[in-house]
């Protein structure tokens, strides 16, 4: 069950990145016809982000200490010291950014040039940071794995 939540958060994080790309393209081609879909996608991103955050938070708070001990004693201590520590704080901003998206996407992005620009930048940051967080997660997992290799 512990590792189910861990993998579920990685999968949902990937879906968040994909949803972000979909949303970005939809906003780039904003028309009256896709306003409804844009708002729905912003809510899907919000839901995916909060679900990912809660699952990751559950694993981190309840189960991560055993992995942390392994990583710090292994050959890749930076997997925790840099990547995990940075990741756990950067995702807080990602959570708020995903929460902000439906608020700004509530404007009519077909006619509101300013709102559209803000949405595109925010979504671009969200997608790039999501990819970076997936990469950091992979490095942390590898940090655990190399700590278990026979010496």
């Amino acid at each position: 069950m512990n590792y189910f939540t861990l993998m579920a958060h990685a999968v949902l994080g990937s879906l968040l990145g994909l949803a972000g790309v979909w949303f970005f393209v939809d906003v780039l081609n904003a028309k009256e016809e896709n306003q409804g879909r844009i708002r729905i996608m912003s809510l899907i991103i919000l839901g995916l982000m909060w679900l990912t955050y809660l699952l990751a938070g559950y694993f981190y708070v309840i189960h991560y200490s055993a992995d942390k001990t392994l990583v710090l004693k292994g050959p890749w201590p930076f997997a925790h010291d840099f990547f995990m520590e940075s990741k756990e704080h950067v995702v807080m901003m990602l959570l708020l950014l995903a929460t902000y998206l439906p608020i700004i996407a509530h404007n009519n992005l077909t006619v509101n040039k300013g709102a559209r620009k803000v949405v595109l930048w925010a979504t671009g940051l969200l997608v790039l940071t999501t990819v970076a967080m997936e990469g950091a997660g992979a490095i942390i997992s590898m940090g655990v794995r190399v700590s278990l290799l026979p010496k």
Partner: protein
Amino acid sequence: MENIEIGKYGRSFGLSFAITCLFSVILLILKETNQHTVMAWMKAATTHHWITHTLLDVIVFVVLGVVFAKMNDGQGIKISPDRLNSFIVGAFVISGILIAGFYLVIG
């Protein structure tokens, strides 16, 4: 495409987001450099410093967003779309660099 004003919640919560990013980084540096006071309090408050940090970020984001939305007789804070975008992107990028830089040095 017309250049019309962003709605008051878009402006207010956008600015709130930018400020909360910077607040979050300041809190991070404060808790990591004050283990026996700030970090200890954050752990005691909710059993884990990360939960307290998240809750404080969400509270600051919501409270500032609501306050900004009520300014100017309920019309919300006045800020141009370009400036709002600069604040959002700038705060996010600067906060990310500060977080990574802090752990690069401390870690």
